[in-house]
């Protein structure tokens, strides 16, 4: 190894791991004003998410929502991406770590490589493609995947013929820029960093290790990650579902749940629940049925754990599809049928006993393991791991490790899904920022764009780029034909195809063509502006073109995806869509974005654990916080909690938190407070708060909504009529206070899912199963002789909470499952002169009704939205979900943002969650809010309204239409005219439709621009008339 240390670099934060969590952490940190290195040991950033086909429960295309973030990272002036890089050593302490990085040799000189891929074409050494789970082939030198950032190949040292025996140097010869260097050595790099974020992610469980279910032996048994690639249009079969043995379309597929999870097995496997497999399996079922409606799906499962936001509906959606069976049974694999390579599965049900059935393909829903090399990682960073090999965390700050200055984000915490990985990333930003706030902005730089070229005197010169989106579009639409057609349209001077328009090399091509061909309009015939417009607009800016000269023609969602079975029709439609966009593009005008002032204070609504944590974090980063609580004291729902599963004494913790909040000089607390009015927008909100008889006006730039939730007041099971019937929170209080009613009880029954998972409240309250287990364990601890029964539908003790479920079962807590159609029946009775509650329920194991006489009945009452939610939602103009919880901007990638800028979300207001999760999310909201408040100003869209004075007749129609008071009549030398304040205008364009003379117009959506699209959509017909 070359021992020469290349150079000494000073940066603020090192992010280790470039999956979605590391990427989000890097972006948030960089936007907060820190200089970041983002390193990953693999050849490209993206992590596991880049291998997924779609994401649950919205079924967004995974790569499509993740890849814009790759480019955002690569373009960010304060992020340096280093792939194929690992950490060698970490010395020093928080604020001043000395880290040595090892850049592994990729045998390609990054600065010289253009990503042209010629080396791969000529490389003679075939390998199994790791990105495609070894199902398809690749070459020893290859780019990790098409949208990879950086778009630079690497050499697999085990397969390269030169590195094996020096027998081949073909790639060196064919590489025009001379970027191949097969003699590269590892490179050491020394960096001085203030804080470290560990985001190493997870590994999927490998069923080969124990030869589980014939994986690795029987060809048609695949893991869920293999299947994810099989489903994917960039996968081994280009999105056609095939099975490995004979590439036939499987017609009958079985999924086996909990592979490698929820098992105590001396030979391996994990005792915990991997938390994501139930939902991803349902996703795979839905997607497979989308591909092939006739496919028969069978899911062999234990409890179905649909505990996340919208998961219950997602589960129902999968379960209600035709030919989909959810079977609650353990299974074993029989054997491979030698005639047709089908796989037989043995399973048993209470109704039918043991059965054997043959399937074309079997998918193992494998669980999540700690990241590979977690032990060495722990050693290198001198942090502790927990018993499962994940990072040991602090239950009241799950983003902290055991070493100061080192934080974690993502699945290294334990098995979590993408939104949690993203929110912990933002939380890691907040915690780094708390530590390093004194140096924020010192090392960071602003993005510099080239000066914008003036094209006002030029004729429109339109360039059209037709994206294949891998096979997403290319498989359906004749893209060469569309590009050819585009060339025939007026004003089009250039058209080309792009394999992935959103890849870095294409961005470069677009920029090059803008210069080379003198393009002054860019039409991207690709996907949706919802995810990709910011990226492509930025590409235009990079090439000196005003971003509003960019126009998007959606030929994927609007065309290829919906008309996948009609290729000719889809191609015709794609041409029409392109024709419309080209017509519109010629009329586009350059617009200036508006810089608005940014008030650095923030309001936090709700003084529970979520609100207080986020307020403290923001205040510790140097921002002024106004905390508004409607109750007389801080604490919220946590006031009713006494202990957590992982041993936190809640009340002392809460008291300490409240004290910190009150003592913080930058936090202004208003209790008994009501928000009476909210006006303004991101950067300059004005909120009126009434407290102690006075109304105070607060000016602030951001808001965090943390209004919490409440416990449902049951109307069922004699609650409120019989004092032996309690809710779980009431039971917890009685246990904590040593109440006589609890101490004297000999038999306690718990009923789960009271008031949720049913008509009206069609969601799972997430916390109740664990809450009941927690209380059951406390009861058993105090009195091991006590009979404790839990009557449940599915025990949803996800993640590490599974261990407590097992412990409860081992301590003889009895679990009886019920179906919603056959709910337990509760009646009050006398037994031996004592009042009891008699619970009658069908026991499916015994196959008969049983009655239990209980001294106490504890109801796991649903968590329901807080009463004030609707009012707050209206005041801040944010959305609520159908269940009444607040609706985040994007379920996966913007879990603490609202669609409206400057407003953030955390805690139970978002969805029921455990205290530890609330704290994570609260830090996440703080991180997101601060990355906004750290900016110098707010940039607002240029697409706002303006008035043509000459046409305005001052009728006032626009003024009455505008809900933002953005228009007023002003006296001019030609009399009164309507004038739009661009700062207040939100660009909805309502006034346009009311103006009788067409004087007011919405820029970027003018009548002329829209007419041009309408006309271009129907040109042939027009002639016919």
């Amino acid at each position, binding site marked *: 190894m070359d021992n020469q240390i290349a150079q000494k670099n000073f940066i603020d934060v090192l992010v280790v791991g470039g999956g979605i969590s590391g990427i989000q952490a890097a972006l948030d940190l960089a936007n907060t004003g820190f200089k970041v290195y983002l390193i990953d040991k693999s050849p490209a950033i993206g992590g596991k998410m880049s291998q997924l086909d779609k994401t649950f429960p*919205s079924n967004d295309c995974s790569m499509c929502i993740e890849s814009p973030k790759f480019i955002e990272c690569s373009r960010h002036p304060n992020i340096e991406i280093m792939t194929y890089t690992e950490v060698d050593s970490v010395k020093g302490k928080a604020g001043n770590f000395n880290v040595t990085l090892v850049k592994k040799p990729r045998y390609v000189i990054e600065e010289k490589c253009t990503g042209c891929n010629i080396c791969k074409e000529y490389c003679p050494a075939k390998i199994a493609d790791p990105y495609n789970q070894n199902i398809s082939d690749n070459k020893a030198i290859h780019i990790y995947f098409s949208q990879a950032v950086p778009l630079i190949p690497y050499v697999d040292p085990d397969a390269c013929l030169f590195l094996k025996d020096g027998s081949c140097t073909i790639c060196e010869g064919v590489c025009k820029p001379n970027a191949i260097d097969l003699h590269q050595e590892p490179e050491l790099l020394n960096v001085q960093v203030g804080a470290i974020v560990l985001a190493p992610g997870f590994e999927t469980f490998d069923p080969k290790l124990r030869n589980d279910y014939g994986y690795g032996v029987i060809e048609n048994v695949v893991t869920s990650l293999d299947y994810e690639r099989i489903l994917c249009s960039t996968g081994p079969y280009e999105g056609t579902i095939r099975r490995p043995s004979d590439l036939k379309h499987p017609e009958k597929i079985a999924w086996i749940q909990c592979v490698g999870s929820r098992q105590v097995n001396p030979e391996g496997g994990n005792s915990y629940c991997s938390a994501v497999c139930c939902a991803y399996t349902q996703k795979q079922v839905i997607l497979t049925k989308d591909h092939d409606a006739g496919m028969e799906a069978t899911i062999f499962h234990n409890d179905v754990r649909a505990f996340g936001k919208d998961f219950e509906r997602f589960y129902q959606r999968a379960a209600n599809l035709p030919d989909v069976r959810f079977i609650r049974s353990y299974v074993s694999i029989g054997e491979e049928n030698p005639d047709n390579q089908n796989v037989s599965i043995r399973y048993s049900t209470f109704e039918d006993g043991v059965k054997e059935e043959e399937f074309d393909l079997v998918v193992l829903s494998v669980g999540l393991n700690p990241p590979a090399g977690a032990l060495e990682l722990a050693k290198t960073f001198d942090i502790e791991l927990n018993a499962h090999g994940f990072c040991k965390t602090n239950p009241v700050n799950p983003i902290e490790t055991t070493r100061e200055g080192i934080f974690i984000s993502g699945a290294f915490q334990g098995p979590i899904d993408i939104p949690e990985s993203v929110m912990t990333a933002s939380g890691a930003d907040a915690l780094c920022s708390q530590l390093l706030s004194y140096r924020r902005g010192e090392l960071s730089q602003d993005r510099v764009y080239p000066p914008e070229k003036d094209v006002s005197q030029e004729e429109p010169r339109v360039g059209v780029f037709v994206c294949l989106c891998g096979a997403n579009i290319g498989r359906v639409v004749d893209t060469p034909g569309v590009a050819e057609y585009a060339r025939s349209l007026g004003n089009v001077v250039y058209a080309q195809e792009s394999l992935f328009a959103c890849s870095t090399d294409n961005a470069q091509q677009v920029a090059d063509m803008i210069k080379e061909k003198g393009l002054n309009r860019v039409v991207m015939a690709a996907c949706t502006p919802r995810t990709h417009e910011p990226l492509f607009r930025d590409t235009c800016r990079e090439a000196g073109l005003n971003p509003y000269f960019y126009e998007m023609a959606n030929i994927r969602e609007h065309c290829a995806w*919906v008309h996948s079975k009609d290729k000719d029709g889809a191609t015709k439609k794609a041409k029409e869509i392109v024709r419309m966009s080209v017509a519109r593009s010629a009329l586009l005008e350059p617009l200036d974005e508006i810089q608005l002032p940014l008030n650095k204070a923030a309001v936090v609504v709700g003084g529970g654990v979520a609100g207080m944590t986020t307020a403290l974090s923001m205040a510790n980063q140097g921002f002024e916080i106004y905390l508004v609580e409607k109750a007389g004291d801080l604490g919220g729902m946590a006031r009713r909690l006494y202990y957590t599963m992982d041993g936190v004494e809640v009340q002392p913790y809460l008291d300490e938190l409240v004290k910190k909040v009150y003592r913080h000089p930058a936090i202004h607390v208003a209790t008994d407070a009501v928000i009476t009015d909210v006006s303004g927008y991101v950067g300059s909100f004005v909120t009126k708060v009434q407290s102690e008889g006075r109304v105070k006006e607060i000016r602030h730039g951001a808001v965090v909504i943390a209004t919490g939730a409440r416990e449902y007041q049951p109307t069922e099971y004699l609650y409120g009529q019989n004092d032996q019937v309690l809710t779980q929170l009431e039971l917890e209080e009685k246990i904590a206070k040593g109440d006589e009613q609890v101490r004297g009880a000999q038999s306690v029954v718990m009923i789960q899912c009271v008031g949720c998972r049913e008509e009206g409240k069609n969601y799972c309250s997430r916390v109740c199963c664990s809450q009941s287990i927690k209380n059951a364990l406390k009861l058993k601890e105090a009195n091991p002789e006590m009979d404790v029964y839990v009557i449940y539908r599915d025990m949803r003790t996800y993640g590490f909470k599974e261990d407590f479920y097992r412990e409860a079962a081992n301590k003889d807590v009895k679990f009886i499952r019920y179906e919603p159609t056959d709910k337990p029946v509760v009646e009050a009775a006398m037994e031996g002169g004592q009042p009891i509650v008699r619970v009658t329920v069908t026991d499916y194991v015994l196959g008969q009704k049983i009655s239990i006489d209980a001294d106490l009945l504890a109801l796991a009452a649903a968590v329901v939205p807080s009463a004030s939610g609707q009012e707050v939602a209206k005041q801040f*103009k*944010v*959305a609520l979900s159908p269940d009444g919880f607040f609706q985040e901007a994007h379920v996966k990638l913007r879990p603490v943002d609202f*669609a*409206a800028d400057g407003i953030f979300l955390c805690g139970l207001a978002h969805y029921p969650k455990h205290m530890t999760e609330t704290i994570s999310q609260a830090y996440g909201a703080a991180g997101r809010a601060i990355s906004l408040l750290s900016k110098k100003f707010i940039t607002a869209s240029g697409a706002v309204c303006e008035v043509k004075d000459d046409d305005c007749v001052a009728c006032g*129609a626009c003024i*009455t*239409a505008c*809900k*933002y008071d953005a228009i007023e009549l002003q006296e001019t030398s030609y009399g009164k005219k309507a004038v739009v304040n661009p700062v207040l205008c*939100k*660009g*909805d*364009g*309502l006034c*346009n*439709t*009311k*103006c*009788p*003379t067409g004087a007011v117009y*919405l820029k970027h*959506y003018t*009548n002329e621009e*829209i*007419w041009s699209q*309408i*006309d271009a*959509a*129907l040109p042939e*017909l*027009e002639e*016919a*008339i």
Partner: protein
Amino acid sequence: MCSGRVDLDFVLRAFSKGADGVFVGGCWLGECHYVTEGNYDALSMMHLAKKVMEQIGVNPDRLRLEWISASEGMRYAEVMNDFGKKLKEMGPIGEGEGLEKSALKLKFQAVKKLLPFLKLVERERLRVKFKTEEEYSEFYNSPEVDGLIRELIGENLAISQITTLLARNPLSTREIAEVLKLAPTEVGRCLNISARQGLIRYDESQKRYAMA
């Protein structure tokens, strides 16, 4: 762009260019992410547009407004498939209504001239805010609004059509009635009004009406 930005003009333009159907999609009522709530305006526009279509003899079912949230991809597909099917049943615009293409074009040209007036009518006489779709439907189908539309729009529309037609060449009452598929008495009434307003004149030599 809000569904409230969908101008009556856009809808009519599309039809006049030969679109067999126009679909407008908006957020569900009460679910505006802002405070604009322009979807209520879209609803009003849709009703008004349908009234205008009725007046010129175009099947109002060719215009469809649906509320579809961002998460309702499946519903969107179902609605579009259904709309496509219904449009096929209706046949091409004009043909399905038994209108000559030239007459259809004339009618849309006439409506276009009336657009500023229609916007004023909407603002002054039809500016209502209800909570539910049913209330809007009830309002727009009430005898009062029907009368108002007939009186204000129907008459003006007829005049507008007549003047657009006469701008090409002079015609008799009977000829006008045939082209526009209107009752001769109605045409006569409109001709009288137009003549009083000085828009048209009766050319004795040709025994035809002509532009003034």
